[in-house]
């Protein structure tokens, strides 16, 4: 094990509703590094992230998930979240009647007002101004008073998810297609945000994506490609242009075997 390893999966086998999805996956994620998990549809990318987060329908049937050298398999979602694992949902469920700003204040105490000193214009202050400033930076200030995920557009969901996950200050975060449904401007905003996190170097980022833009902008350190529930390729960003040209099938047919199980570059 690498000294700097934050999280690793060992021969991880996961089923959903009795169907095997991950069939023995060994991956390793180091502190402060940026990873891309790629792969054709139904290769198990989201399943990997959800199983690591601990979502019960993603049933671990074999192998292990270790955070800082200790298994998290017996831990609830809540415990894993508190240990520093975060997952940005691809399609987060609506929570009617719960405002986005109130919710973020609740999950991130840094934004919530403390006692009496935070009385604002005679009204009890709910959230600090910093929250709204940060919302503006991500261009989601219009969502502040909306119900959580209720009627958010694809792009709004992505940014709101990213915001929430960032405000939890996790050790490792899994971003499930953070770039889908974004227009060019939003893509730049999200890219810049992620790059700032990378530069701080304290959070490990795992990006599940099909698109090149954010990955290149971020200068991903390691690329993993899953295929049919197994790790089929480990490499660097240099593989991406070729992959894009050839498609997964041809690319993996040619390069898959030589790098398979190659661990981290």
């Amino acid at each position, binding site marked *: 094990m690498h000294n700097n390893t934050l999280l690793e999966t060992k021969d991880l086998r996961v089923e959903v509703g009795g169907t095997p999805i991950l069939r023995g996956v060994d991956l390793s994620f180091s502190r402060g590094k940026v990873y891309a998990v790629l792969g054709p549809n139904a290769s198990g990318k989201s399943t990997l992230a959800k199983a690591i987060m601990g*979502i019960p329908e993603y049933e671990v049937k074999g192998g292990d998930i270790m955070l800082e050298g200790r298994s998290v398999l017996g831990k609830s*979602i809540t415990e894993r*979240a508190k240990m520093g694992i975060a997952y940005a949902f691809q399609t987060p*469920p609506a929570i*009617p009647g719960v405002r986005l700003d109130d919710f973020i204040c609740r*999950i991130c105490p840094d934004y919530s007002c403390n006692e009496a000193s935070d009385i604002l214009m005679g009204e009890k202050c709910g959230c600090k101004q910093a929250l709204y400033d940060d919302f503006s930076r991500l261009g989601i200030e219009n969502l502040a008073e909306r119900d959580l995920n209720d009627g958010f557009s694809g792009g709004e969901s992505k940014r709101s998810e990213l915001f929430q996950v960032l405000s*939890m200050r996790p050790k490792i975060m899994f971003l499930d297609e953070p770039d889908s449904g974004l227009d060019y401007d939003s893509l730049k905003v999200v890219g810049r945000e992620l790059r700032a996190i990378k530069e701080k170097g304290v959070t490990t980022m795992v990006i599940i994506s099909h698109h090149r833009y954010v990955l290149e902008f971020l200068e991903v350190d390691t690329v993993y490609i899953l295929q049919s529930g197994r790790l089929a390729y480990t490499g660097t960003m240099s593989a991406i242009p070729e992959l894009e040209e050839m498609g997964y099938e041809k690319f993996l047919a040619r390069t898959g075997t030589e790098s398979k199980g190659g661990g981290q570059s």
Partner: protein
Amino acid sequence: MTRLTEAKKRARSARKRPPKYGEDIDLEIFDVPGPGVADLKLEDLSERDREVVSQVGFSPEEQGVAGSYAQFDNESILADVMIRPEGLEVLPTREALSRYDWLHDYLWNAVAVDTDKFTAASELEEYNGYYIRAKAGAKIDMPVQSCLVVKRGHSMQNVHNIIIAEEGSELHVITGCATPGVMERSLHLGISEFYVKRNAKLTFTMVHKWNEQMDVRPRSAIVVEEGGTYISSYAILSTARTVQTYPKVTLSGRRAHADLYSVVYGRSDSKYDIGGALMLAAPGANGKVVSRTIASDRSDIMARGNLVGSVSGVKGRLECNGLILSEKARIAALPMLEALADGVELSHEATVGKVGADQLNYLMSRGMTEEEATSLIISGFIRLKTPGLPAMLQRSIDDAVKMTLEKGL
């Protein structure tokens, strides 16, 4: 035959008529105390009574209200117009009927006296209640508050209310109904007739806080004329033995509008049969019936809704959403849409289920425990905003909900 004896005659004929919905109740078991005219002074209220009325949104200090009406059982009555805003009247119904002969035209007009045994009993026994009227063009910004309290066991509280918003007026009424402590089985019978005239706006906010000894049978009907708006927001968050209510709104004039919002939090063995009907009877008439119900313990909730579009160019929407918190609780949603003409646009959405696993997982992934996530989902679910309701009245509902959740979860 005078109108009065005619009403009595019709009532007698319906004396044994069982109700269309809800459990039938033997009325013989209740005494009907009163009627009294004991004058009530708010400053004489006991601490306990103050607390009781405060919990259903009634300010004993009469702060921020245009007028007040309070009734304890059938006896102690207060009717008060606070700051005497131009064009507002608040009187006990009996006094108003003896003062205004024309008011008899409004009595048993929206609600038929022979609807069932409850309307019949109300007519045949002595009653009182409140009469609230905004005169033509009067905009009464501050709400008129009322509370109806049942303190005596084994008794029937018999209330007949008449609320009139005259042409072009605006009137906001908040009514709290409550029972302090445990007592023997009692019945609250409330007839309410609302008249919203041309281009008038009437909002009616009601918070109920009963206990498991109470049977509650409101009989309400509303008539909305051309361009008029009626908005009601109803919250029942306490136990009750049984509650059955089914206000019927007739949108009789062009572009008449009505929204009925209700929130029900079912507890213990209580049975709630809550509904509402909109009769969309003039072109451009439109409205919504929206309910959010939560069933905990062994409670049983029936959520009804009925939209009837009888002319072309009307639009109605029905939403019943139910959340079941216990294996032994039950919610049934019964939406009904009737289109009797071409060009009627009616729609409904009904959902009944438990707290969603996807919602729980999502919130837990943000570091909340399962209990915290559940209570957040419930409090969000039950937070029902009523568009068009003044902020102060929305706050009364929100506060009542908040109090319930803090106690209950």
